[in-house]
């Protein structure tokens, strides 16, 4: 028994040291440095308008207003909910993920068809085969802030009709909001929906 205790003495002490160095000092130091050097990013890249936080650059939102551009379908609804839902649920913790439906799962086909129907109802001028794939498939995180450029363009008719802003202006708005590939090679061309909607709102207010 005593022998075992002696054998465990160094490992035990080493473990305690590791808890302190790697588990406490390292993350605390990282927090301090990040807060000092990159305070905006370290606190979630929040966007403030008139002193009120209205979103994060990184996280998509569940836009439903017919005047705004919409995000991709989300299994977690972008962690957004109405005041009533919040009151009934009490404390809500955020979540993330997808529905994890395999391509052979009939439920996936059904969900995609439902999303297409919904999209066609909202955008009656669009033909089924013109819908880009990303706007009717759910993202992996359920928080994807981006849509493809095609997916933004395909919503122009609806937004124009409901906001009375001309299609040309909307096209230019989208073009201004395109995030290009890094060095022209890495990543994909995309549009951040929240940023696009914010510039759209500025446009509405001006006109």
């Amino acid at each position, binding site marked *: 028994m005593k022998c075992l205790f002696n054998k465990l003495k160094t490992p035990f002490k080493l*473990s305690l040291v590791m808890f302190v160095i790697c588990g406490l000092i390292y993350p605390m130091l990282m927090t301090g440095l990040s807060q000092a050097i990159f305070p905006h990013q370290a606190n979630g890249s929040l966007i403030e308008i008139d002193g009120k936080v209205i979103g994060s650059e990184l996280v998509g939102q569940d836009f439903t207003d017919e005047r705004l551009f919409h995000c991709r379908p989300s299994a977690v609804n972008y962690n957004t909910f109405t005041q009533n839902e919040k009151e009934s649920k009490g404390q809500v913790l955020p979540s993330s993920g997808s529905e994890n439906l395999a391509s052979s799962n009939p439920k996936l086909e059904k969900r995609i068809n439902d999303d297409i129907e919904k999209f066609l109802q909202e955008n009656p001028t669009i033909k089924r085969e013109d819908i880009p794939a990303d706007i009717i498939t759910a993202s*992996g995180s359920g928080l994807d802030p981006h849509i493809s450029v095609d997916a933004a363009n395909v919503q122009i008719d609806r937004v124009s009709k409901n906001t009375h802003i001309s299609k040309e202006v909307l096209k230019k708005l989208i073009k201004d909001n395109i995030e290009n590939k890094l060095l022209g090679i890495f990543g994909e061309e995309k549009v951040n929906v929240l940023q696009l909607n914010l510039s759209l709102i500025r446009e509405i207010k001006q006109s």
Partner: protein
Amino acid sequence: MVQIVCTLLLFMVIIFPIGNYVYHVSVGKRTFADPVFDKMDNFVFRILKIDTSTMTWKKYAMSLLMVNLCLVFIGYLILRIQSIGFLNPNGISGMEESLSFNTIISFMTNTNLQHYAGESGLSYLSQMLVIIMMMFTSAATGFSACIAMIRGLLGKKMGNFYVDFIRIINRFLLPLSMIIGLFLVWQGVPQNLNSNIELTTIEGKIQEIASGPIAALESIKHLGTNGGGFLGANSATPLENPTIITNIIELFSMMILPVSCIFVFGRMAYDKHEESKANNRVYTLSTKNCNRANKVWIGKEGRTIFVAMSILFVIGLGVCFWSESLGNHAVAQAGITETFGNMEGKEVRFGVAQSALFTTATTSFTTGSVNNMHDTLTPLGGLVPLMHMMLNVVFGGAGVGLMNMLIYAIIAVFICGLMIGRTPEYLGKKIEGKEMKLAALCIIIHPLLILGFSALAVSIPEGVNGITNPSFHGLSQVLYEFASSAANNGSGFEGLLDNSLFWNMSCGIVMFLARYLPIIIQLGIAGSLMNKIDINESTGTLKTNTLTFAIILVIVVYIFAALTFLPAIALGPVAEMLTL
């Protein structure tokens, strides 16, 4: 396609200096950063009163197990009492027993299989003290074991576990994690101790956004080939992986350590070769200078292993990318043209190319973090990650991947020896009955755990209840879960409802056995080879530092995998593809 090639080329550029540095750290040679790190190491040695003399393989393995045991014990307690008010701004409650058991084994074994969702399952205290801490220590454990095995194979002294363990953390993992972590914060990964953000959107709805010390976890998660995310959806979430730059940084950082291990192995084998050459001939000053002049990066033995692993990797990557580019069957059925390939479960900012690359890398390097959901991959796209975890030698996790590949090298040498009628030898050591028995035992554990437990899971209701996708894909979900546990990978076909007593316990047992049994056996093989006398190279010796041997190695790996896993794979992903 172009960006995949560019990404891999970029990696080849950065890995040479880093591999060189890791080699210097591993063998105790001088580096530019010694003045600082020597002090840090000595400080830890002094307060722990560690005896830094070399160990036998049994003592080495024992120290490794004891340290892991202590970490598991304390970590389990913290998970159970995490509901205390300290560093818990979101009011997370304590974790239940079977889930705590699964989680603690998962993180200690470098698996990082998560049966909880980070946002609701862990307080910041647990994320820091248990998860981040174990990401360092489990990576260092694997790496130390690997270095010890290489030393044994080459007939050097085994070294001291505590020294190896502390050196790699102090000199490599900690400093690099901080640098990478700051890069990630710069790109937008949060790093704070505040509670989750609640805000009102422009449409007047309420949105919850997760917060916490995410960047600190994110950097070591990849650097140590751990892979357990701060948030449920792991590196797919824009909070953990906001831009293409972070995606490439995370990709590179998970590839660094496993590839560096090969550099260490190659260089040490080269050093030994040079030593024996020097002993065998008159040693003049001029030849010495001549040797110094040509700089050695990876060594011939290391190159063989690297080429073999790269061939396996590129084949897998090609299949995955091709299959994902073809698109999702269900989307095509709905009459939609997929110009960018299968986007279900993927993020727009990564697209198919970066997602396929990440998927292949995370399962090859057994990290297990995901930037897209593997359950929603096409059947063949999902076969690649499954297959690479079943092989478990395509670079593999920190240290253990190389250890597994060395076992395959021993088996390949043995098979070739039988074919040409010579005594098999590897790195100048005779491979005899004892080593072959141990190597065979080591290689059989992995398929036995995967297939045995999968068979158990599909034959009892507790197991079947977890399956969420119908038909063949359901079997793939089960196979994937156990392959991920046994390869100490940690990614998942996340649809599986795995937070139940059966799944928590069975996966915990698989992870535990799959981690420690091979390490002990591999150290045992190294310990046995260490004491053998070197035999001189002759014309009859099978050269193991050639391209031919690399190809033999690839074939041996594939044949072995086909013999063990083909029936299961045929019933899972292959059948799913054929029926679509």
